[in-house]
């Protein structure tokens, strides 16, 4: 068999059905009954195939429920999605939804299981990898990545703070710093993605350590955060939260670190007064909005025709139509196989929110600062993964072609069967922790004792209010209040 002509198309299953319908309309005209019987068979099969939704498609009802602010419905919809007990991604989504529902302990349990599973998945199963070469990347376990795993301590700290378990929150902070280590002498070797999420994570843990009187740990975290934001600002415009230099300076004074106390005022002349002023801050709000970009499947279908000789099409045209181009109807080629190649692409889920404001009870507005641009981090992570994804796609395509060729050599029936198996199992791996927010802003301030409520406004790029939320405070809380507010819009 030689492949005389390959028609390549890049379109969805829906448009593929349209293409097949068109071919079937011309069924009698072209007189290629045998070839098109195969098409009819495959057409039926593709109708079935369309029902196989990708992961990101399955998660749509959950995201839609969250968009309407209905967390309970989102949880109900999530429970309908079948998942194996050792599915890391399921644990991550579950932990996050439990956090949103205020089920702090369940959230921590799910995240704890996710961390353990992540470590187990360091070991790669060769049989799984081999199986994925004959099916798709979806048959490999979801392994997550460092930036997703860095958000586990972020949420677990919130959970423990809500449970009043500050020593456990500190354990999470120490764990986060240990797992996502920063070597300040190697900043030039760090990727933009790592700089971004590690800068935020260190500032976050630094604030917690400082609030619990752990000056030594706070100092390390603030120093790391400061240097990372500073580097990021110089190299790719990463904004540094305006309170960080003061927090760093104040902790350096407490630790009597003379070099840092001497150097910081050279860059920030008013740092001493700012640090003293910020010392009274007893409220820190983390404002989460939007959804991270998600992975969408790209399907490439290639119907490949077979001819006995390479010039068969031209000869058929000459013999049948005698060179009359207007009489030409279709090409008399037999379908050899369908080739389906699927891989993911990143799709943004744009949020209306561009900034946030906090309103104190006396009406004073306070601008928030962007702590973490998760959309950018996710985008960078995908770019980092893409090389591996495409390489695996190529190897898989070759492996599937190998099995198909062996089967076709034996019999056409077996070849068709293997072709169906290959096409049916090929599906883009669109799995990701897609419920995460697009961005995390933060605002730090001091509220007078007895304050029981503040207002948060999520604003669009024109300063119009996208969503306004009243945030209840504990008026009798003595220490730092640590609150997360979520806007799904």
């Amino acid at each position, binding site marked *: 068999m030689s492949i005389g002509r390959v028609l390549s198309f890049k379109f969805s299953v829906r448009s593929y059905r349209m293409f097949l319908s068109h071919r079937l309309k011309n069924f009698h005209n072209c007189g290629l009954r045998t070839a098109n019987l195969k098409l009819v068979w495959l057409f039926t099969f593709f109708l079935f195939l369309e029902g196989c939704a990708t992961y990101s498609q399955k998660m749509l009802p959950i995201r839609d429920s969250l968009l309407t602010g209905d967390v309970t419905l989102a949880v109900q919809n999530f429970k309908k999605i079948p998942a*194996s007990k*050792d599915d890391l991604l399921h644990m991550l989504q579950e932990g996050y939804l439990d956090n949103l529902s205020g089920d702090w302990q369940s959230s921590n349990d799910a995240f*704890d299981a996710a961390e*353990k599973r992540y*470590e187990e998945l*360091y*070991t*790669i*199963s*060769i*049989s*799984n990898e*081999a*199986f994925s070469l*004959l099916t798709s990347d979806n*048959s490999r376990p979801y392994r997550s990545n460092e930036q997703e795993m860095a958000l586990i301590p972020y949420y677990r700290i919130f959970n423990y703070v809500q449970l009043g378990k500050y*020593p*456990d929150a*500190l*354990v999470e902070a*120490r*764990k986060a710093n*240990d797992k996502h280590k920063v070597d300040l002498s190697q900043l030039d070797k760090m990727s933009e993605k790592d700089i971004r999420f590690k800068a935020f994570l260190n500032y976050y843990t630094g604030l917690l350590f400082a609030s619990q009187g752990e000056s030594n740990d706070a100092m390390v975290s603030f120093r790391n955060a400061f240097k990372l934001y500073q580097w990021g600002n110089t190299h790719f415009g990463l904004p540094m939260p305006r309170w960080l230099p003061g927090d760093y300076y104040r902790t350096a004074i407490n630790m009597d670190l003379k070099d840092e106390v001497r150097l910081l005022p050279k860059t920030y002349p008013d740092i001493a007064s700012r640090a003293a002023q910020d010392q009274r801050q007893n409220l820190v709000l983390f404002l989460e909005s939007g959804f991270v970009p998600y992975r969408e499947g790209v399907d490439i279908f290639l119907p490949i025709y077979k001819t006995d000789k390479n010039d068969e099409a031209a000869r058929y045209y000459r013999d049948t139509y005698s060179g009359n181009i207007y009489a030409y109807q279709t090409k008399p080629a037999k379908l050899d196989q369908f080739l389906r190649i699927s891989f993911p692409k990143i799709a943004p889920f744009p949020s209306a929110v561009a900034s946030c404001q906090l309103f104190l009870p006396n009406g004073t507005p306070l601008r928030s600062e962007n702590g973490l641009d998760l959309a950018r981090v996710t985008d960078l992570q995908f770019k980092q993964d893409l090389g591996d994804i495409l390489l695996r796609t190529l190897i898989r395509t070759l492996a599937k072609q190998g*099995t198909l060729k*062996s*089967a076709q*050599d*034996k*019999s056409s029936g*077996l070849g068709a069967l*293997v072709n169906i198996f290959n096409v049916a199992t090929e599906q883009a791996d669109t799995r990701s922790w897609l419920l995460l927010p697009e961005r995390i802003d933060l605002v730090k301030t001091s509220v007078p004792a007895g304050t029981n409520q503040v207002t948060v406004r999520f604003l669009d790029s024109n300063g119009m209010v996208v969503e306004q939320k009243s945030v209840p405070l504990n008026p009798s809380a003595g220490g730092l209040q640590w609150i997360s507010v979520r806007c799904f819009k």
Partner: protein
Amino acid sequence: MKLSVQAKLLSLMAVLALAGAWGCATRTISRIDPGAQVDLSGDWNDTDSHLVSQEMISDCLGSPWLVNYVKKTSKNPTIIAGSILNKSMEHIATDVFLMDIERAMINSGTVEVVASNVERGEVRQEKADQQVNASPETLKKMGMEEGADFMLIGQINQINDSEEGKQLKYYQVDLTLVNIETNVKAWLGQKKIKKYIGQGKFQP
């Protein structure tokens, strides 16, 4: 016997499907000796808690401070287990560790251990209730509690090091026995645990 291509393909698919299912074998549960040393994740576990408490209390009660105290007061000292600060990177149940310490001390027979702060609250509540509801013969008097002579406090620290599937966990447990009246530190104990956790990159 020569297998057909069809048979070979079906066999390959079956083998791969079985291999895929291998990783998700059904869960098995069996009862084991509570004293058995089982390490699964490499994290701090019940064995660490038990071994550390046993060894440290044995060291504590074998130290000169106890002999000196008994010689000086002619009675066994009374100890209260204070708090153990968890400054590690793991969620260690310090209550379990404290109970292990208390058990090791009581079972030694050389010291007396009084109820902790939380336990005392419950006991006092019961005693207050007795003042109203118990018969005079069985009533327990208020203000007859035994004050502790020493308090045992401590902390657990951890240092981790890891690279490419290899992990080293180092735990250091420090316990201090403080004379409540004088604030003098009567005994300082330290126990270190070092664990190496190796994880292969590949499995069949």
